């Protein structure tokens, strides 16, 4: 009896840890777009769903190996990020936020109404190839990649856009190029996260990737602190695990979520680890 309990408990912890890792990867992608570049995106879950669906289709219908479907998910995330990024990154602040939100809703409705993608029933039987070790590897890779990117010359250019777009342009930074670049890379990581997610749960459904998912990812970023890799990781860990611990109070979970967001913005808008104030 004890060993069964032990086994179940471990299994449960491994599941929560894997989901947490996947969230870290996606939130780091969002951090690049919103925290580092200063472009508020409310449609990050859309790129997650693009990654999840494209990798699942490639796995199931073409029988591609896991690594290929991961690359495909990442690639499709990047492709759509670039396709959306080029026209809408001329917009600023609130307008950009609304456009990304609108894009997220369109992706959801299109998936919901495409029989090839399973419609409202979703896709079953995706090979469950993601495990904790693979997720941990990609988490480390993502952190390393983001760290190197921020420290590089390109990272400096990207941060200058956040601080003052006009001044950055005056200094010869190609703003549109860097905005599209950051949006593409950020979306690629959302795609990677989505691909890992699909191959972990082996079942996906358009409802999983709605507006609330984008908000959840934004909350993780905001809680930790925008523009900070430590913050993004910390926020993802807290908001992925605390709801699990508080599962007995699940009825009150969302209400508490709302209160936490408001209190956070009133008393510590820069997040727990953030040093900078992002002005979007």
């Amino acid at each position, binding site marked *: 009896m004890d060993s069964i309990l032990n086994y179940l408990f471990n299994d449960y912890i491994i599941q929560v840890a894997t989901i947490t890792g996947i969230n870290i990867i996606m939130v780091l992608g969002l951090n690049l777009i919103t925290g580092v570049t200063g472009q508020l995106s409310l449609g990050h879950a859309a790129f997650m769903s693009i990654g999840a669906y494209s990798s699942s289709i490639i796995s199931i219908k073409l029988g591609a190996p896991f690594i290929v479907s991961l690359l495909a998910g990442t690639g499709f995330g990047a492709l759509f990020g670039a396709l959306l990024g080029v026209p809408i990154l001329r917009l600023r602040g609130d307008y950009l936020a609304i456009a990304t939100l609108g894009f997220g809703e369109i992706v959801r409705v299109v998936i919901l109404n495409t029989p090839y993608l399973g419609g409202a029933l979703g896709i079953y039987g995706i090979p469950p190839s993601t495990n904790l070790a693979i997720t941990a590897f990609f988490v480390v890779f993502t952190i390393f990649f983001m760290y190197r990117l921020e420290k590089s010359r390109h990272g400096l250019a990207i941060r200058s856009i956040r601080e003052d777009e006009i001044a950055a342009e005056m200094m010869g930074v190609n703003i549109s190029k860097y905005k599209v670049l950051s949006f593409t890379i950020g979306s690629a990581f959302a795609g990677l996260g989505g691909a890992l997610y699909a191959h972990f749960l082996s079942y996906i459904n358009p409802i999983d990737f709605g507006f609330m998912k984008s908000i959840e990812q934004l909350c993780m970023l905001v809680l930790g602190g925008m523009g900070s890799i430590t913050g993004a990781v910390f926020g993802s860990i807290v908001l992925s695990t605390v709801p699990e611990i508080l599962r007995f109070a699940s009825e009150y979970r*969302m209400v508490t979520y709302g209160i936490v967001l408001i209190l956070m913005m009133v008393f510590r808008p820069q997040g727990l680890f953030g040093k900078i104030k992002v002005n979007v």
Partner: protein
Amino acid sequence: MLEIILKQLLNGITVGSIYSLIALGYTMVYGIIKLINFAHGDIYMVGAFIGLIVATQLTSNFIVVIVVAMALTAILGVLVEKVAYKPVRNSSRISALISAIGASIFISNLVVLINGPQREAYPQIFPEINFVIGGITISFLQIFIILVSIALMFGLYYIVHNTKMGVAMRAVSQNMTTARLMGINSDKVISFTFAIGSSLAAAAGVLVGTYYRAVDPLMGLLFGLKAFVAAVLGGIGSIPGAMVGGLVLGLAEVMGVAFISPSFRDAIAFGILIFILIVKPSGLFGKATKEKV
């Protein structure tokens, strides 16, 4: 064919005028404090629920139902502003936006806690009367919804253009600092704006309830977002823009459902949104703002 088009035209105007009522709240708040009031859709939902409670528990007199719903929801709107928006008014835009999202999550889930997530049937406040004019069936309810919306919009127009508070609202939306220097109590004006916007949303909620005969605690998000699209379409910050935007959106949606496919109803609104943002971000009636260096 013509009959179908006319019929859809009427449906579109009915839905569109409800969108307009909600869009007015978004546009007024944005005009004054440059904030997308994410909780507005949920305030509209609460308005519909208050209407439901009054109609089932107290009286089915429509005037009483709508007036009580508007008054109580106005108080709620002011409360939300005091708690969630006022403390972050001088923070960065993203902080205010996230606080608004927090308020939205809180309100909708509080109603879920109290009521449960299920749909509630709305009582039939009006007897079903249909007129047939030239082969087209027009329901009394549709005419009534359109007339109530028009009356409320004229009321708003009167307040904004002919009262002292209206002048103060316009002054604050032009430049809050200067308005304050001229002795306008901007806090009071902002509260008033929230009260008016929320009561219009409550009216829309009651109208939607009587039209679709059902309400649910999560209906605020999508309907609210679409009303927001209407506000952007008309040019956010512009009151006539919100009215026209609502009508255009309602018509586009109904026509899209009738002649393209009903399953893409929600994608139509957001497709219009992205198109407008790319082609003319300031909307139909909006003024293009210049970047301040």
